[in-house]
């Protein structure tokens, strides 16, 4: 069965076996990349499966909102990403932060900044000691891991922006937010990332 807009809308209208066939085919043909993408952000295959399958069910619960003749697979991919971002958001809100990481302006609190610096001193080599490219890479990876742990949703969207060249409209659709709220989110991405990459910027010296 071709994964076309026509077969999708027909399955949505008729339900039953046609949806089952669609589920089987999309999982077989596109499941691997959906699960891999979710696992990369969630750092866990099992959680990734849960998120992707939740998204697949959502697709058919809201299939009537798909407006052809666009590519239904691209639309499904967007629903998967929406669900993934929801999961990352939920994960952040459930994380047992004993102290708030940010102040009212969204900047790292003094205590959090000190903790990040302390962690950097303990785990990241200083610029004087890091000469090789592999060390720069290691520093960047560690910075990114810490950023992704503190702000998984922002880190994931930022990665997609760089890897896929997303523009504002695409980010709006992903986040399901207004243009204004999306601009604020983008601004927050930059602001939230900066302290986590301070030691790496220090090493490579751009800012």
């Amino acid at each position, binding site marked *: 069965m071709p994964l076309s807009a026509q077969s999708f809308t027909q399955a949505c209208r*008729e*339900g*039953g*076996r046609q*949806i*089952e066939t669609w*589920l*089987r085919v999309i*999982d*077989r043909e596109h*499941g*691997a990349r959906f*699960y*891999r993408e979710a*696992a*990369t952000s969630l*750092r*866990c*295959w099992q959680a*990734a*499966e849960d998120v992707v*399958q*939740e998204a*697949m*069910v959502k697709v*058919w*619960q809201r299939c009537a909102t798909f407006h052809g003749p666009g590519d239904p697979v691209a639309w499904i991919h967007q629903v998967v990403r929406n669900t993934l971002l929801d999961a990352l958001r939920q994960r952040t809100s459930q994380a047992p932060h004993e102290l708030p990481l940010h102040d009212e302006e969204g900047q790292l609190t003094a205590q959090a900044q000190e903790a990040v610096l302390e962690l950097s001193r303990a785990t990241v080599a200083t610029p004087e000691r890091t000469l090789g490219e592999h060390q720069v*890479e290691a520093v*960047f*990876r560690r910075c*990114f891991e810490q950023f*992704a742990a503190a702000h998984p949703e922002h880190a994931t969207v*930022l*990665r997609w*922006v*760089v*890897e896929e*060249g*997303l*523009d*504002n409209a695409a980010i709006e659709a992903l986040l399901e937010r207004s243009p204004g709220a999306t*601009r604020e989110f*983008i*601004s927050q991405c*930059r*602001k939230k*990332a*900066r302290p986590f*990459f301070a030691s*790496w*910027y220090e090493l*490579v010296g*751009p*800012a």
Partner: protein
Amino acid sequence: MKQEPDDDQHWLDLMAGRAAPEADARTRKEAAWFRAALLSYRLGAPPGAPTAPDERAARLLTRARDAGVIATAANEPQGKFKPARRWWLAAGIAACALLLVRVPSLWTEDESHTLRAGAAMQRIVSPTPMQHRDQMLQALTGAGFDAHPYERLGRPGIDIDLPVPLPPIQADALRKLGLLPPKGPALQIEFILPPESARQ
């Protein structure tokens, strides 16, 4: 470090690989390094592997059933057989009739075709079980049934998922194919060789 809203937009454009000629030098530099690093040091999937595709698909279907997105065989609505499918059913039955006319050998040997009725399993004795199974399968799917072939202990068979209660139009379709409509949500048909052939 306060940024102007435009500056953040320039930063986003540069991060996405788009031109932002009005961006200031500092923003350009910041975005260029960050983008290059994110592209060079792409995050990979975590260690481990995803679940095997078959297992994963089975879980997905179970989840979809639990959510009511797809129906289980037992609670498939009667209305599933919509007008459009009735046409297929009629066409399928006609095709089956045509098939039987074109392959008279299957039905002329009446003595070797014994139908034994059971609640969920029906056996058809045939000198050519595999061929007979394939023809029956074609007739069933052509008539709109959800029928799947299988093979067990060297015996070819067909699994059919049916709604409960069975709509009269489907019951008639089964009868016309020489099958007894079952009471349950599934029917298995096995095709076996006549005893004398099996012994040889």
